[in-house]
């Protein structure tokens, strides 16, 4: 039988490892000291005697290629068949969650040429020792079309399927309403699916929690023995490392230690990789330390995943938890965070000046950093509205002269403290004191001046370790620092890639940056991307999406160049948004008592003049009415949905493009007691929608982070979203088999899929009320706090803060 089975290893998913996968793919993650995750898949193949294997990797597969080589270690360097690495041909496709028929179609020749008739598909990141042939046998005996392997109510994305069937799906991928084998098993009519519940230890590793937990599970005899059994060894690449050395002060309890390591410290419940150095009096517990890490004297490391080459400096204290392990970046140098201090450069911050979300992010982040012991200062231009309101509060701290644009000007620096955050304002009448803060012809010159002025006052601001710049307005600072040879690390946050600050008209003459910029135009954001020490954007998925031109536009190239220094951290939601304390809703409720939400629902129906009844299903929207927010689809789909489903009601609060509004108004007229539009964003607060609606619709084509879906979840309103940007990072799609999820999401941006997803959400509401309640509670419990955002941000700061000052 083994000659009739070929194995497809699905390494196309990226999962949620964030910085662990900056320079490798999940399949190449180290495991149990000396292995990589993919060793398990390949060793299972070898132990079954199978000789035809294809790996479908996503983007960054160099480390995988390097590890796997010709496949010799797994007897896969064959004349006939052997090991095939089948990379994506279409690099403009954003990362998917699992192998699609489209990916298979790109390499259809492989499937056609292979003589085997049965395909066993499994992900690259499962730790298990599975007898593949035994499971194929079970599949054959079941007479089902497809077998799906599950374990512990988790989908293992592992399938046994006839090759002829897979081939026909792959050949016709563009005509099918299904993208993956999972879609087929869930939706295709007339396909029989046999579910195999895998017995024995197995863990599908998708995030740092699972990763650490299953590593530490190897320290349990009952588990370790089944995974590393003598009959079914796990094979890995050979490395020339001598046996580990234990020195005079070593004290090790229940830990695995790999070759080449020097142990002189205290280790408990940990996995130590190759060539790790643990010095005297270093205390390591419940952690996974990857190869070449160094943990110096007098340190404490608990619940951490330290990536390759991490150095923990003397006296450092690292403490994570099993749920949220501390994760370092490759080659990071970690020191104590005690005296970390940050200078933020922005053009907006509440309560001083605000035109959009940026102002809230800067203020919220600063306050939460201060709460975590990070000294934080914010520097803003002294716009007219700040001057009018706060001129009595702030104090002048410095006054200097600056030659800018062939003109000697006087610039002042003012200072005040707001909620424990230091605020600095740069005063210059000509550039900043205008009625509006943006939209002037000389914006480039104004903000170039702002950047110059920040540099001018660096010594007058309370000392700081890192300059954190927001969006393009502060984008020249990293370059100016380099040009003047000032060694301060910088971090850029990209809130919106659409605003880049592209400047012509000889700005370079003014700034004298010819050494760095050859063209006669300057793109502020591009310069920031190229020169900042670290780059961050508002969600992990958006970070990945920006690598594709569809999202990243003209800056794709610059971002790709900085890919390894580019991180995604999800924005947080203020604790103000809480249905338990919200004074603006009719009846307060919490995760422990969700029932009063129904009162809010009835109240919403009443005030909106909709037909009343708790069995009705209210779809809410709080949004700008623009193409980007998905209105091209909504306007096409809404009418049909309402016709098809008499229980559905629709409430919208927002403002935007008139042609969409007109179309929506037509629909409102057609369903007078079921649709209500509130046009005008400032007309009223949206809380009554968050509290009263059953679902929040947010099918944005592009959504860097998105806050509405997080607020809705906190209010027990299930989101229906497209899997993009922050929406993808916050909403887990409901799976009717495993009952897991926090909402409803879809991948393909088309009317059919949107309609289908809305319908699925409704059927779950109608037919599976218990599941629906579970989703509500799970969503309400999810932590989207500002505090979590601030902690992640501190981890990023620590990556670049200089250890030795």
């Amino acid at each position, binding site marked *: 039988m083994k000659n009739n089975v070929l194995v497809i290893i699905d390494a196309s998913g990226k999962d949620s490892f964030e910085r662990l996968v900056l320079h490798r793919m999940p399949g190449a993650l180290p495991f149990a000291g000396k292995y990589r995750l993919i060793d398990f898949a390949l060793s299972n193949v070898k132990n079954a005697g199978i000789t035809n294997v294809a790996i479908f990797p996503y983007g960054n597969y160099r480390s995988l290629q390097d590890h796997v080589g010709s496949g010799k270690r797994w007897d896969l360097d064959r004349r006939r068949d052997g090991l095939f690495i089948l990379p994506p041909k279409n690099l403009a496709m954003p990362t998917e969650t699992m192998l699609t028929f489209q990916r298979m179609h790109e390499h259809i020749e492989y499937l056609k040429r292979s003589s085997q008739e049965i395909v066993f598909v499994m992900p690259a990141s499962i730790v298990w020792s599975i007898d593949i042939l035994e499971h194929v046998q079970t599949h054959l005996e079941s007479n089902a079309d497809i077998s799906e392997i599950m374990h512990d109510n988790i989908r293992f994305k592992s399938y046994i399927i006839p090759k002829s069937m897979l081939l026909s799906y792959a050949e016709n991928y563009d005509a099918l309403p299904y993208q993956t084998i999972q879609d087929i098993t869930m939706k295709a009519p007339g396909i029989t699916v046999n579910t195999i519940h895998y017995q024995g230890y197995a863990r599908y590793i998708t995030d740092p929690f699972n990763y650490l937990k299953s590593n530490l599970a190897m320290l349990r005899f009952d588990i370790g023995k089944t995974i590393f059994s003598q009959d079914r060894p796990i094979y890995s690449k050979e490395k020339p490392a*001598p*046996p*580990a050395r*234990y020195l005079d002060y070593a004290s090790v309890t*229940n*830990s*695995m230690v790999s*070759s080449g390591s*020097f142990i002189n410290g205290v280790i408990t419940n940990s996995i130590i990789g190759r060539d790790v150095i643990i010095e005297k009096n270093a205390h390591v517990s419940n952690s996974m330390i990857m190869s070449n890490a160094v943990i110096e004297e007098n340190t404490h490391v608990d619940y951490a995943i330290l990536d390759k080459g991490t150095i923990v400096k003397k006296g450092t204290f690292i403490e994570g938890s099993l749920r949220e392990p501390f994760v370092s970046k490759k080659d990071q140098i970690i020191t104590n965070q005690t005296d970390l201090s940050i200078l933020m450069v922005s053009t907006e911050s509440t309560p001083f000046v605000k035109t959009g979300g940026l102002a809230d992010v800067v203020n919220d982040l600063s306050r939460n950093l201060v709460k975590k012991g990070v000294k934080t200062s914010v520097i803003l231009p002294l716009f007219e509205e700040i001057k009018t309101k706060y001129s009595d509060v702030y104090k002048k701290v410095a006054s200097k002269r600056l030659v800018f644009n062939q003109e000697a000007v006087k610039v002042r620096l003012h200072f005040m403290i707001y909620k424990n955050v230091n605020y600095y304002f740069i005063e210059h009448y000509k550039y900043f004191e205008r009625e509006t803060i943006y939209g002037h012809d000389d914006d480039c010159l104004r903000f170039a001046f702002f950047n110059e002025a920040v540099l001018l006052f660096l010594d007058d601001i309370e000392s700081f370790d890192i300059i954190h710049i927001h969006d393009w307005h502060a984008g020249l600072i990293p370059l100016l620092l380099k040009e003047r040879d000032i060694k301060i690390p910088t971090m850029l946050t990209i809130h919106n890639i659409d605003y880049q600050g592209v400047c012509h008209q000889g700005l370079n003459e003014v700034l004298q940056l010819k050494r760095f910029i050859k063209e006669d135009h300057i793109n502020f954001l591009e310069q920031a991307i190229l020169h900042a020490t670290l780059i961050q954007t508002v969600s992990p998925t958006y970070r990945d999406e920006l690598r594709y031109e569809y999202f990243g536009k003209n800056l794709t190239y610059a971002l790709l160049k900085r890919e390894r220094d580019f991180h995604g951290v999800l924005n947080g939601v203020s604790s103000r948004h809480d249905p338990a304390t919200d004074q603006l809703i009719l009846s307060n409720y919490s995760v422990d008592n969700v029932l009063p939400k129904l009162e809010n629902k009835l109240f919403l129906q009443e005030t909106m003049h909709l037909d009343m009844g708790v069995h009705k299903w209210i779809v809410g929207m709080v949004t700008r009415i623009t193409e980007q927010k998905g209105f091209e689809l909504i306007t096409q789909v809404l009418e049909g949905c309402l016709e098809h489903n008499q229980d559905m009601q629709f409430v919208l609060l927002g403002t935007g493009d008139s042609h969409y509004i007109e179309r929506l108004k037509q629909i409102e007229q057609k369903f007078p007691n079921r649709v209500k539009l509130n046009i005008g964003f400032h007309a009223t607060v949206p809380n009554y929608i968050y509290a009263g609606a059953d679902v929040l619709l947010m099918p944005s084509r592009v959504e860097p982070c998105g806050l509405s879906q997080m607020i809705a979840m906190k209010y027990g309103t299930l989101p229906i979203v497209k899997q993009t940007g922050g929406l993808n990072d916050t909403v887990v799609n409901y799976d009717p088999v495993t009952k897991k999820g926090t909402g409803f999401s879809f991948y393909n941006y088309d009317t059919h899929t949107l309609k289908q997803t809305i319908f699925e959400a409704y059927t779950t509401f109608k037919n599976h009320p218990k599941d629906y309640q579970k989703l509500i509670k799970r969503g309400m419990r999810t932590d989207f706090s500002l505090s979590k955002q601030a902690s992640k941000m501190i981890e990023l700061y620590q990556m670049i803060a200089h250890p030795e000052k």
Partner: protein
Amino acid sequence: MPKKIVAMVLVGGRGTRLEQITEKTAKPAVTFGGKYKLIDFVLSNLSNSFINVVGVVTQYEPHELMNYIQHGSSWDLDVSEGGIHFLTPYTNSEGEQWQRGTAHAIKQHLYFIEQYKPEYVLILSGDHVYKMDYTEMISTHQKTGADLTIAVFKPCDDKSRYGIMSLDKTNKVVEFEEKPDNPKSDYASMGIYVFNKESLKRLLVSLEADKTFDFGKDIIPKALNENYHIQGFVFNGYFRDVGTIDSLYQANMDLLDHPEYLKLHDYKTLPLYTRSKDLPPHHIAGKYPVVQSMISDGCLIMGTVTHSILSEGVVVKDHAIIQDSIIFAHVVVGEYAVIKNAIVLENTVILPKTRLVFDKVTVVNNETIWQLGGKTL
């Protein structure tokens, strides 16, 4: 395809002074430093010197070694032009070709050398402990235009074990004494030779049919007599011929006490390769000290280990104590067993409460354990 250099590794000797250690194993297959075998040194040196045509001349218990080396891929020696070849005694029309000494072994396999038409032949032993890049020695050989270059070192133990070389100012060998009682020089031969192929052939062809022939005893004195140009190449690194139990033990302990000698952790310059046993990292599961020791993959340790070297897959049970010892692969040490100053061979099972405490280093295996005090406390 012609090659400039062909290396011949002699792994024939039995190494009788290693007693039970080589009873079922050729000396080059003897475990060293936990996870290595002696042959790893020479194979790694060849790999690090980019020499990839290697004839391994075997005679005594060759199967374990052949099985271990396979195609040489662990040392990157599995190349399509050349690579590793096992040269075993054979029978031809002139009768059975049993080896009669090291030189005779090479003579038997001259045909193998000839097929690559090399300029030089590097002759090595498979049982020495040292890290060396042969490139420098070969270029010295080329520069001096010698017929033969011999690597020499200054032994720190009993010189009468070695072949002693007297060198002149230009490091030319002027006198040679095999295992002399009163050595005239500090330099001893390491048994590493670079020959001009033609000179080697001439010396070997002139051998008489029915006598034994060694490089040390016969070829070198003969070459000196016949005024061949013999050059000495002084090697200043760590070199040990671990021919006895004490020297094997001492060289192992040098890894613990003097890691700077062999620099096993230096993978950049001269890494030491070995074949992987596909075992998981070892697991320290007990609450007792494990200090001043080297522990290999796959071990499970619940007892105390001090100043010892453990090979792969060793199980040390609760309350067992291992001190100043070398434990070979897959040994099981039972509860409350005490081991001191021992070399415990592969797969030995030590029952609970066994006391194996020696003043002098002693070899223990499943057969001898009873005579050696396998009594329980």
